[in-house]
């Protein structure tokens, strides 16, 4: 699971409606896979990400140095865009869990695929 995906997910257990985003990452296996750097795409994502959630998720995977506020989409800072690229599209949770801060619901990540299903008695 890449952080671009993590940034879209929230807990959807029944009656869990506040503080259900972002899900806390507890990774037991993390990998970094090189992907093609596309500054235009990264710029486009700047306004679309929940920035604070992205920064804290990146930090939980050991990527430090992201600014506290999202840079402007016009930014020319190639080095910063490269860092965001690495955090957003290269770092991956292979095995681990996503936990809801509010209700404590645990979603497992297996072979880099998060299992976002609820249990049959929760729907």
């Amino acid at each position, binding site marked *: *699971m*890449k952080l*671009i*995906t993590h940034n*879209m*997910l*929230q*807990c*959807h257990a029944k009656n869990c409606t506040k503080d259900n*985003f972002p899900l806390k990452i507890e990774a037991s296996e993390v990998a970094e*896979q090189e*992907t*093609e750097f*596309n500054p*235009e*795409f990264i710029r*486009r994502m700047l306004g*679309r990400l*929940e920035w604070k959630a992205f920064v804290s998720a990146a930090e939980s995977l050991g990527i430090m140095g992201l600014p506290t506020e999202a840079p402007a989409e016009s930014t020319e800072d190639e080095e910063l865009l490269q860092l965001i690229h690495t955090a957003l*599209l290269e770092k991956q949770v292979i095995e681990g869990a996503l936990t809801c801060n509010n209700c404590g619901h*645990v*979603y*497992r990540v*297996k*072979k*880099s*695929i*998060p*299992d*976002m*299903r*609820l*249990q*049959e*008695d929760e*729907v």
Partner: protein
Amino acid sequence: MRFLCYFVQAQPEFRLPELDAIASMFDIPLTYDKSEYRLENPFLYIDVPSEECAKKILSRAILIKEIVEVWADAPTHEETLEILRRYTERYKSFSSPEISFKIIVDFFGRKCAVPRQLEFINQLGFLNLEGPVSLKTPKLIVTVVHDYGGDPRYVPELPYRCYVGRVVGTGQRNLIDRYTLKRRNYIGTTSMSAELAFLMANCARVRANDIVHDPFAGTGSMLVAAAHFGAYVSGGDIDPRALRGKVAGKSIASTFQQYKLSSHLNGLLTIDMSQPPFRPTTLFDALLSDPPYGVREGARKVGIREGKALPGPEYPKPENHIPMTMPYDLPEIMSDLLDFAAQHLHLHGRLAYWLPTFRPEYRDSDVPTHPSLTLVSNSEQALTRRWARRLIVMEKTAPYQPRTERTCHNVSHALLRTKLWFDTHGREDPDEPTQAPRADEVETR
């Protein structure tokens, strides 16, 4: 500028929706006379501002064979030659020692033997093209097109229409071979053909750097097409085995590796579409989907099946517990899909999906609606005399408002699984105890 759009004679219902979608994707003002267009005939004059616009359309079109700048158009070949003799200014500028060329003869609806082709080519000597002949990399391709109509049962002695002109460019038919399922690393029983997957990506106006999602990804066919056009894609499925692949080295990820598109695969998720786990905001530029419906791949959602006991009260469940699933009724799937699109698409983002239909009962009013979505196109692909699927394209035209009614069951695709089973087996499905009426008893409104 006026051009002749020469479509392929395949998927005719989808040709105009694709053309319109591509033009609107590039903001190209496009006009044509729809009354001139016939499904059995692949020729249509289109007006676009420039040749560059025609080339942009060609850069995406999967159902256009080529676009031609017509120099002569007449009911007979002799008349086209006469027109060419009279209006030399139409092609004079292409007569230069620097412009290599070739002439091709292209009969639609009939074969043309090689000696006769040569005869036609030699007849055009009076064009006085000065450049060298190049069969492999010509700068100019002159085409002689004769239209014998698309009816194989009746091929007329003489063509209906003859055209001579310059080929502006060809469409993207080569992608069909490049991405063919025959050589794809990972496919399943319901994998979408490359042709239709690219068609869907075009109809949904998938562009480079878009975020595209398929909530019923299966083996990921539509995601491959979207990624080829430069989008970043993700896919969900309720069955993690489909996403991961059951055999080592055969998975959606391996397919993306095969086509060198791995950088564009954002991720895969095990998702129950009746309970989507996305934060409630706009996230996607386009959604492509072929929701499951068949006898073989019946849809499931998490839930407790009728007649089954509730699982034990212990919570949390053991880590490896797989939730029980129950049938996921088609009208409900469609309703969930539309609401998902209405909520998570960016404004003017598009949803393209297949709606299976029972042809004897289908009405246009069966197509599900949503207050935030506007229908763009609805084209049928017949599967059998009784069964079809329709490619439904919708655009988000208003901010999200939750759906007013949950599902509508009074439609021909309701109880589709039961009807399909009845069609193939001549009796009701013994494993699926249901109150469903038989196909011929289903209420036709």
